[in-house]
């Protein structure tokens, strides 16, 4: 009998459960219905635009939230109800999210660009028509009558899609590379808080840090790196290579893309106008620096190194200045921000030293574009103009996330004083010649890693040997690039001839005709530069073949 009672009460329990589940389901239905209609039930006259990106760094979202608030207030004063929704997706999942919403047909209105130039051309509104006019939100500033594109540090060169000769994105920030230093640790290990100026000084300090670590029995890492994606290694090699070879910039005509122009360097090399030692010295320097990386650095990613830095176990961390705010904020000790040491006078390779590469003319990145499928183009464009106006861009960047603003004549206060672009004694950075194809570049970085781990004596020689062995594959990769460039050129050529015909047959107003002409010129320029690139690539292939033969393989 008692068992039946238990059964009954259990059934009653279950029934209550089912009823509750049913109620919960109904509530969920209502909420979802309201959400799905996009809030149109509640605020029918409101225009909503979506602003999407992957920057989860400290201060970025907050800065834009403030900018959004001001934009909405400004619009309200004009009598328009506008709502801007900021959406963030983590960096890891971003490329896929980006592509699926573009294909899906309902993309966000202002979206951070990702993916290939072909995708930009296919899905995004060409902005060249709009960047030639002044930014209306710059009224009352020194840039009131300056065309929008010229208010940026690089005149929007960084936003130019070279393959298609068109601007698809507006950049919002700039960045340089610095070394973050744990000053307290430095003092404990060397007795002084002075940051090293030259390479030799740097290496000496690193040695002292290593000894200090062994003395106190704690794992002290002299130089922390971002090893997993090879970014730190990449930049250090680039930087030291440029310190010794930036004079080669004079040989470059600047007519082709940097990667394509590598042919000139090889040409000089093959013609014996340039010593191989000068090119490979960088590999040796990297090896010397690499001795102070942590063990297993090839697997360490940015998060882990930052974690160790905040815990006080890392002396130096070379990273971009987009991390400056979070590095300073999360460290319980004083953090110094210094430029990466130059070779200086007291190193074995001082004879090759040409000068510290200059940071003037730095590029503007973080491009945001407006998809063609957006239903609120003018509002989205206004939002972009608003957030890149002289005042607001500085507010977001300098006040909130402590990044370098994209606009000219910005005020660099606080941390930004250490991050701002410096005038160096050398020329601009130059692309190492092993960079002609991405696959080869990865392989060369891996070779550098192996050289570091094995502490090879003849770093330069081994590096060169790996390069010569890689040449056949590199030639294949460059040929693939040529094929892809040719395909792109064909599609641009169609656009060019369409515009040419349109210009002949239709009767346009003056302004539209001017726009068409501008477009035509941009396309023509991009066709010509693509053609030049292909010529450069072919030259590179010929030279690479000669090199391989010369080395007797």
């Amino acid at each position, binding site marked *: 009998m008692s068992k039946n009672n238990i059964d009954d009460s259990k059934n009653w329990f279950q029934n209550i459960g089912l009823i509750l589940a049913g109620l919960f389901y109904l509530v969920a239905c209502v909420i979802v219905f309201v959400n799905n209609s996009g809030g149109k039930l509640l605020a029918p006259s409101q225009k909503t635009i979506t602003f999407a990106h992957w920057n989860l760094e400290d201060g970025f979202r907050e800065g834009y939230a403030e900018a959004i608030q001001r934009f909405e207030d400004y619009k309200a004063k004009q009598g328009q109800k506008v709502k801007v929704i900021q959406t963030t997706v983590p960096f890891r999942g971003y*490329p896929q999210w980006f592509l*699926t919403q*573009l294909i899906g047909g309902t993309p966000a209105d202002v979206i951070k660009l990702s993916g*290939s130039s072909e*995708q930009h051309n296919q899905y995004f509104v060409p902005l060249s028509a709009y960047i030639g006019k002044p930014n209306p939100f710059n009224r009352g500033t020194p840039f009131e009558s300056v065309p929008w594109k010229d208010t940026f540090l690089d005149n929007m060169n960084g936003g130019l899609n070279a393959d298609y000769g068109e601007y698809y994105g507006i950049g919002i920030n700039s960045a340089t590379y610095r070394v973050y230093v744990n000053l307290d640790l430095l003092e404990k290990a060397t007795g002084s808080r002075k940051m090293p100026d030259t390479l030799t000084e740097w290496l000496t300090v690193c040695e002292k840090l290593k000894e200090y670590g062994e003395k106190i029995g704690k794992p002290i890492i002299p130089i922390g790196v971002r090893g*997993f994606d090879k970014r730190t290694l990449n930049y250090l090699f680039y930087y030291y290579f440029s310190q010794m070879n930036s004079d080669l910039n004079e040989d470059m005509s600047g007519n082709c893309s940097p990667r394509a122009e590598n042919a000139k360097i090889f040409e000089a090399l093959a013609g014996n106008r340039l010593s191989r030692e000068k090119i490979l010295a960088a590999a040796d320097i990297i090896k010397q620096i690499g001795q102070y990386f942590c063990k297993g650095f090839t*697997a*360490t990613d940015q998060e*882990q190194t930052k*974690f160790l830095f905040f815990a006080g176990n890392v002396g130096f961390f070379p990273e971009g200045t987009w991390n400056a705010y979070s590095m300073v904020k999360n460290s319980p000790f004083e953090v110094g921000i210094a430029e990466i040491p130059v070779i200086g006078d007291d190193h074995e390779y001082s004879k090759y030293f040409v000068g510290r590469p200059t940071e003037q003319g730095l590029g503007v990145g973080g491009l945001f574009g407006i998809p063609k499928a957006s239903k609120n183009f003018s509002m989205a464009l206004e939002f972009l103009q608003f957030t890149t106006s002289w005042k607001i861009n500085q507010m977001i960047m300098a006040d909130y996330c402590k990044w370098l603003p994209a606009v000219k004549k910005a005020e660099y206060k606080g941390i930004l004083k250490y991050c701002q672009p410096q005038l160096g004694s050398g020329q601009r950075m130059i692309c190492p010649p092993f960079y002609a194809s991405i696959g080869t570049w990865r392989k060369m970085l891996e070779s550098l890693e192996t050289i570091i781990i094995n502490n090879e004596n003849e770093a330069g020689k081994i590096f060169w040997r790996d390069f010569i062995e890689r040449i056949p594959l590199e030639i294949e990769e460059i040929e693939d690039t040529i094929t892809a460039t040719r395909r792109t050129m064909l599609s641009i050529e169609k656009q060019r001839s369409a515009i040419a015909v349109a210009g002949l047959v239709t009767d346009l107003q003056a302004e539209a005709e001017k726009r068409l002409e501008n477009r035509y010129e941009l396309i023509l320029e991009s066709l010509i530069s693509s053609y030049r690139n292909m010529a450069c690539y072919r030259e590179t292939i010929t030279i690479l073949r000669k090199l391989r033969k010369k080395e007797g393989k």
Partner: protein
Amino acid sequence: MAVIISSRKLKYYWSVYLLVAIPLVLVLIFNYYPIVNGFIHIFYRWDGDMVEEFCGLDNLRKVMHDTGLWRAFGVVSIFIVANLFKMVIPIMAAVVLHHIINERAAYAYRVMFVVPMVVPAMVFYLMWKYFYEPNAGVLNEILRAAGLLKSTEIIQWLSSEALVIPSLVFAGFPWVGAFGVLIYLAGLQNIPDEIYEAAEIDGAGAFRIFRQIELPLIMTQVRINLVLMIIGTIQQWQNVYLFVGESGGPNGIASVPGLVVFREAFSRGYFGYGCAIGFLLFLVTLLLTFINTKLVRTKK
């Protein structure tokens, strides 16, 4: 028995077909149409939207040359073999649970086995991902506390090429999350008591009972689970995605074919290539299921 309707009486009973119309239409549109569409697009260079260019066997040629893809199949085979071993513990747990004398304890144990099934699998994966964290993670801390790891060393479970695949295989220990345990248990509970008594009279030890009575009787469930496991493991890429992201770990070494499809199609935009790999996966699944049924039949 069911009502048998021959083709002569069809004109009176044709409305019965309407019953199956709804599921059929749904399945045709949302399952079969994509299958056929996917097959056709193997021969196209397709970016998911406007570019649809017939390119013949290019995608198939790319599949042949893609060493990453073949390595991915290798990784999946490792996972299948590992999952075979992973099936042992649930069987053992079910048998042990079946032999628990205390009834109330047995009931409590049964309930406790259902909890891991109910907690979202994602939470378990993410918790194991946390375990593998090099700095803050629990696994490294345990090793450090046990003295196996110096305080200066960190083991990169998920970012070093050698360790990432074993880490993926080991995650989720002891692998009783699926509802395998309860199904085996239910099968075991159907064994009549007389057989046990007969075995005891014969003086059979626990092990012999297991081998000769219990194992054959739950064999049907094991076989079904085996087939499901193989089909499931070949396609499964969600666990790799959760642990190491779409790149598939250091140098993409832990990629599985499903992950390659996802990456090539939805991140890089090579939809045609994705379809080609998908079709290849289907062929492999077909082959394995065929082999499996043949093997199992001969065993009988």
